């Protein structure tokens, strides 16, 4: 198992390096940052001076080797826009998104397990229909649209929650609510599907033949087995949460890494784009390895693989 994890980690390192190369060259294809950093009426001399100052006048491959050289000293470059270390900017924003994403995915997962299991217990029932419809509807709406409507309803009309920003517990409710809509909707479907399968599996028959109570069959036998596919999907959804975070952070003024990376690419702040991508990619790879470990914890067939 550790051999496997080691291989996974190696693959991750290779992928991160590949990613860095890709990001470096792709971002440089998106255009000259001097148009975005200097006022529109800046003179061509000023633009040249700007390019020379930041090394953009050098051939791309030289820039790349310089970047690699700096990486070896853990120098991830300066943010053009914020006048400070790009990695510092990225690491400052990352925990904000992490907190939001972790809360969202756990709440979505926990709720989906309950709702999905109850729906699977009686497929086709009124509750099943209702749960499917509501959860899917939540997942099917554009998130920025839900976010703005949420603000108008809950903050402006009803005055129950703050409109946006960070601070109190109440500030968390809407961002998490919006962010978890899609994972929740999809996870309910996954839980329901795997649970229906698990409930008609042979080992559930055994449990029934043993006289085990229905609740215990659902939660101890079926759900326990359904966790594995649910975790896989939840892991995939967690990585795509970065997308949702972009929208949620933009609307709610949440100072996270999603908004940061989008702003950075819009403003061609290359060092920040590279740093944010590096940070999120590392987080995603760590998450994937964590999921592998979790898999082994939950599934003895993986844990005790001898041959």
């Amino acid at each position, binding site marked *: 198992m550790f051999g496997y994890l080691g291989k996974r980690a190696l693959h991750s390192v290779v992928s991160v390096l590949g990613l860095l190369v890709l990001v470096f060259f792709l971002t440089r294809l998106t255009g*000259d940052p001097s148009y975005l950093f200097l006022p*529109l009426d800046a003179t061509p001399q000023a633009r040249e001076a700007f390019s020379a100052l930041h090394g953009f006048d050098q051939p791309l491959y030289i820039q790349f080797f310089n970047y690699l050289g700096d990486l070896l000293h853990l120098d991830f470059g300066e943010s053009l826009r914020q006048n400070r270390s790009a990695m510092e900017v990225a690491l400052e924003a990352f925990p904000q998104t992490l907190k939001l994403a972790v809360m969202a995915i756990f709440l979505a997962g926990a709720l989906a397990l309950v709702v999905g299991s109850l729906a699977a217990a009686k497929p086709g029932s009124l509750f099943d229909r209702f749960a499917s419809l509501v959860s899917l509807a939540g997942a099917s709406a554009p998130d920025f649209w839900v976010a703005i409507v949420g603000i108008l309803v809950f903050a402006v009309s009803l005055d129950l929650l703050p*409109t946006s920003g960070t601070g109190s517990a109440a500030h968390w409710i809407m961002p998490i609510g919006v962010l978890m809509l899609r994972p929740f909707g999809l996870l309910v479907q996954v839980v329901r599907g795997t649970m229906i399968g698990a409930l008609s599996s042979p080992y559930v028959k055994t449990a029934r033949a043993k006289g085990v109570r229905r609740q215990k069959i659902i939660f101890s036998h079926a759900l326990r087995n359904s966790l594995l596919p649910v975790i896989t999907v939840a892991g995939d959804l967690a990585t795509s949460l970065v997308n949702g975070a972009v929208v949620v952070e933009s609307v709610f003024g949440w100072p996270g890494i999603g908004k940061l990376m989008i*702003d950075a690419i819009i403003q061609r702040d290359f060092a920040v784009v590279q740093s944010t991508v590096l940070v999120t990619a590392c987080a995603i790879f760590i998450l994937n390895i964590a999921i592998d470990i979790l898999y082994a914890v939950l599934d003895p067939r993986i844990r005790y693989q001898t041959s």
Partner: protein
Amino acid sequence: MRNKGALSKIALAVLLASTASPALAQGGANNITIVLPEQPSNLEPCGSILTDVGQVLSQNITEPLTVIDPKDGTPQPKLATKWERVNDTTWRFHLRDGVKFQDGKEFNAEAVAFTLKRMTGGAFTCNNLAKFGSAKLSVTPVDKLTVDIKTEKPEPILPALLSVAMMVSPATPADKAVNDPVGTGPYKLNTFTPQTVVLDRFDGYWGKTPDIAKATYVWRGESSLRAAMVQTGEAQLTPTIAIQDATNPKTDFSYLNSETTAIRIDTEQPPLNDVRVRKALNLAIDWQGMAELFGTDVLRASQMVVPGINGHNPDLKPWGYDPDQAAKLLAEAKADGVPVGTTIKLIGRNGIYPNGNEGLEAMMTMWEAVGFDIDLTMLDVADWTRYLQKPFPQERGPNLLQIMHDNNKGDAAFTVPIFYHSSGQYATFSDPKVDTLIGEALNATDTGRTKAFQEIFSEVHDRIAVDIPMFHMIGYTRVGESLDWRPNLTTNSEIPLAEIRLKK
């Protein structure tokens, strides 16, 4: 197991945060929260002409030698009390006495010299320098409170130019941009985080003590959200909201925001090199209908500067809506062999101003109605800039470019040369007569200068029809009912906290 741990940790963090949430707590009545449309990129005083930086920094933390009076565009004293022109290339400024920087350093001639040297040093990118064009400055302190500023060429409007030179403490690093500016203004920087900027009143300020003790800046991209925040009392002021959000006459104020929108015509490319075609473009638009899109308070523009700017020509009449005339001009041009059927590229820029995309879509429809063939392309800033500035892309073909110009610096000299001189950065045409006129205007002073610029505007509008001026734009602000403050022409670049009064 590890999940449970993480979850409980986060729950704890949330709990702690909720008991001690300082960010939006309104400590007292004289603390205010201002919600901006975007996060300030940084707080480098040398970037104060950028809206995001300037709205926090200008007149609050840092002050220049002079400020522009929005009513007539003339420079007024700030850190300089008076100034005179010593000779063609030298101006002498007399500095205010008893002014201290927020770090306790004294404001004097040396400080002015330091600031200007820092700006022109080239060790980092100084955006404000762009306003000086190619002007080279040399500063000579005469005595403690007097400096001479020499330019290579005569610079009749140097006092106005210096309104963008934010004086910084000599303790500021000269070789790199900073995020902790120290100036002479009535407020000093408390904190700058990814969530907020907080300014505290500076007790050692040379002027009148302002009402507001503490100002917190936050930023939200959505206009409706900013409006909602002021409505719910989470914030007291937002400098920009979209027209459709300005629904409450008690809190929402419009102001002419010094921005002028227009479509630039690439006059070198047929059929746009024909004046009839250009006039037809101007006449084909239902300007009143268009005004609906940008707010009924917008001013129909006939030139690229707003009233109040030195050189604005109040007698110049904008083109009206006359689709028949447009069609006729087009037919005439066609009869003369002008290839009016050529597809014309209409190039817009995403997010250039509110409802900008809709405006272009509407104009495209109207132009096609009189017989043009228009192809609309929306570009991102970087790509769009390639069309805006020389050298223009080689294979660009006939094109119309959506532009917006902001001149809040009081003088048409910040507008005319770049747009209309044959060597101008944005100019698509060269007209010897206009070039001569511009040369004269730039060296003229007082009323002669005003007249000269007015003549240029009428020339390019009536005779050449070089572009399609659209509107002098209106901005909307929402000001909480507890504040006594009105926006004006400069609100786009600065929000002086000292001018904000609390209603009793």
